[in-house]
């Protein structure tokens, strides 16, 4: 429904300039924005359910998760934090883009008035958005420490539970083999404050969480055995009681299927393997998270300096800043992708946290099929991206005053003329 709103009005947005009043066109523009924000909301509610599968239960008759509370899915706290964090990150990306292109115009000494105005708008909007990205990122971290303790421990490379409040590791070299972090530079108290918002609650370390997973795997084996009995004979009351008692841990029992065909016959070594498989890739998460946060803080600084220069009318004299702004162009994309890696790669080995292991979530298609489609899409999109960047550079070089190169509606041409100095 949100896609409908966005897609129906985006056509009118482009083609309705001469057919609508100014107010009408503005309303259409607002509806496009509303539609795309709603799309983002629903996408992130779905994603948040994969991070924190609330409001659903497993039905052994149909072998799937079924909805038990729509409102709990809708008001999943993870979804609220993720929505604002992700949408604000998109706004920051847009702001840095405007800032960088405007800086390029100023460095070239052209389209000065438009560029300066764009920079002022991008800087103030961008500052507000980059602040909310960080605040809601913090909220995400807090919520993750509630329901995805393993992800937080891996991001922080915290192998052993520290005495609260835990220290934050600014720099370090996580070593997966040794299960330790070398050369760590730590800020006392900081992690405990961010993750638990307290000074007395511990942030559980990886070793403790693996122990916890081991317990859940033992319970999950019971659930899996009961499920098999129930599938064979739906009237088996004993199996049903056993399944109901252990169904919350079924996903942990399924983790064993990677190492042994029948979980109830698993050896302690295999259970140990499965328990340690709940730890995501620590060095990757550790570094992706730190670079993302560093970039987020850098954007706040960038926008703050831009606002300062804008109020002092000193953009043209500050070539050093314009160059920094221009070369910041790719950074928000990097930050956004790193955030995605932290959220999704950090959820591994789960497709749906605690419920469905990724290796069972894949389809039964052959690896060759998937490789072919992935390669196809990668090549196809790379080609499209090359064309897109070429066209965008062409447009940027031509600038707002170059739009008259091909026929434009008189109103748009007048706008382009009016905004030139």
């Amino acid at each position, binding site marked *: 429904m949100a896609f409908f709103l966005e*897609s129906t009005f985006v056509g009118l947005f482009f083609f309705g300039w001469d057919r609508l009043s100014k107010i009408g066109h503005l309303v259409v523009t607002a509806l496009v924005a509303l539609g795309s924000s709603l799309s983002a909301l629903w996408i992130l509610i779905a994603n948040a359910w994969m991070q924190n599968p609330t409001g659903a239960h497993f039905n052994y008759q149909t072998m*799937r998760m079924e909805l038990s509370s729509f409102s709990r899915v809708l008001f999943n706290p993870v979804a609220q934090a993720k929505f604002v964090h992700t949408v604000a990150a998109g706004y920051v990306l847009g702001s840095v883009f405007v800032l960088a292109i405007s800086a390029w115009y100023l460095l070239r000494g052209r389209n000065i008035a438009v560029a300066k105005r764009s920079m002022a708008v991008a800087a103030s909007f961008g500052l507000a958005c980059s602040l909310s990205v960080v605040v809601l990122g913090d909220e995400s971290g807090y919520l993750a420490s509630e329901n995805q303790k393993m992800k937080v421990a891996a991001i922080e490379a915290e192998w052993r539970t520290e005495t609260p409040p835990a220290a934050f590791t600014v720099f370090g070299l996580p070593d997966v083999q040794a299960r330790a972090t070398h050369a760590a530079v730590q800020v006392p108290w900081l992690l405990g404050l961010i993750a638990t918002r307290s000074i007395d609650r511990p942030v559980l370390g990886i070793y403790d969480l693996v122990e916890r997973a081991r317990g859940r795997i033992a319970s999950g084996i019971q659930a899996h055995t009961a499920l098999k009995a129930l599938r064979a004979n739906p009237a088996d009351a004993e199996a049903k009681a056993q399944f109901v008692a252990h169904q919350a841990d079924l996903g942990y029992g399924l983790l064993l299927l990677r190492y042994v065909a029948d979980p109830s016959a698993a050896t302690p070594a295999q259970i140990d393997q499965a328990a340690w498989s709940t730890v995501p890739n620590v060095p990757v998460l550790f570094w992706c998270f730190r670079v993302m946060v560093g970039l987020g803080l850098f954007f706040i600084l960038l926008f703050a300096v831009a606002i300062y220069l804008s109020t002092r009318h000193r953009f043209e004299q500050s070539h050093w800043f314009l160059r920094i702004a221009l070369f910041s162009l790719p950074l928000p994309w990097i930050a956004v992708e790193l955030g995605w890696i932290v959220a999704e790669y950090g959820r591994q080995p789960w497709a749906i946290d605690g419920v469905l292991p990724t290796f069972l979530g894949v389809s*039964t298609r052959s690896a060759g*099929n998937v490789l072919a489609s992935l390669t196809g899409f990668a090549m196809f999109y790379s080609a499209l991206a090359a064309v897109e960047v070429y066209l965008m550079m062409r447009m940027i070089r031509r600038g707002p005053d170059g739009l008259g190169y091909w026929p434009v509606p008189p109103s748009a041409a007048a706008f382009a003329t009016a905004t030139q100095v």
Partner: protein
Amino acid sequence: MPDYESLRVVWWLILGTLLIGFAVTDGFDLGLGMIFRFIGRTDEERRALLESIEPVWEGNQVWFILGGGAVFAAWPLLYAASFSSLYLAMFLILIALILRPVGFTFRNKIPDPRWRNFWDWTLLIGGTVPALLFGVAFGNLFLGLPFHFDELMRPVYTGGFLNLLHPYALLAGVVSLSMLGLHGAAYAALKVGEPMSARAAVAGRLAAAVFVVAFIAAGAWLASGLDGQRIGSGADPSGPSSPLLKSVVVSPGAWLANYRQHAIVWLAPMAALLAAVAAWVLLHVGRPGAAFVASSVTLAATILTAGIALFPFLMPSSTHPEQGLTVWDASSSAKTLFIMLVVVILLLPIVLAYTAWVYRVLKGRITLEYMRKHSGLY
């Protein structure tokens, strides 16, 4: 809350409605994509043709997204089995559909003729390939797809991509191509100025003729040669969604069982044929508006014809017929179906209202005169 059986039937009807909505709206811009290079000879003529669909094709395509969303949410087993089985076909459809937005957006950015020709071809592929493959997919439903479920209820597909190109499926592809071609041509005849309008009418009549022949041939084949499926026993319309509990009988001509039982459903194929003939006549006498209505009826009635033949099957299996998916064993839980039904009842009228408003704002023919005066920034 209505009972499970009614909810399932209602969601089968909603799925059909969304497919028809997709065919009637996105159908004309796919159809126009197939023919615009032939009925528009100069760059200006082609731009006028494209401009008649550019503001609306994106909204139209959401009917397709919504159809996919409805399958995902209301018929999750169908979603899993079909998307996984038709993996490479879906990949091709997606590539072709992705060519459309870039074609529209990139085409007019550079005036070089080679550049524009290139993107015109991508738009032609983007209109033709999905229209053909949608028909091929429908044809394969009547043949059954080679799939079954493993012990974790994951669908396992045991065929290849080329198996999908059975002659019957290709015939269904021709039905789909010709009916969407007719629809796109009727739209062009209605929405653009001369000389494109007159050429569109000729193309539309050709497509209508092809459609009538292909539709009758597909029906005759279904009645005489092709194996059809019927549920034998074990299907509980209010039971849990597990496709492992029933038996299925396979016999030639069984896809017409619903038509033998209820004479009234013959109205659907009759309407499809009569409307196609009417569209031919109306394009001939210069009534493109009425022809567009007629081609819309053709689309709706054709989809209905296929749906009635398959009912209650959604996706039959050729290798394990008893594991094929039906309306009774492939749906979401009753609770999910009910919540989504409420959402659809509340929101669909709003969507229809603002879509109608957008079309009203955009009313009028795109003539060459108009193109010379206004030409978008798109």
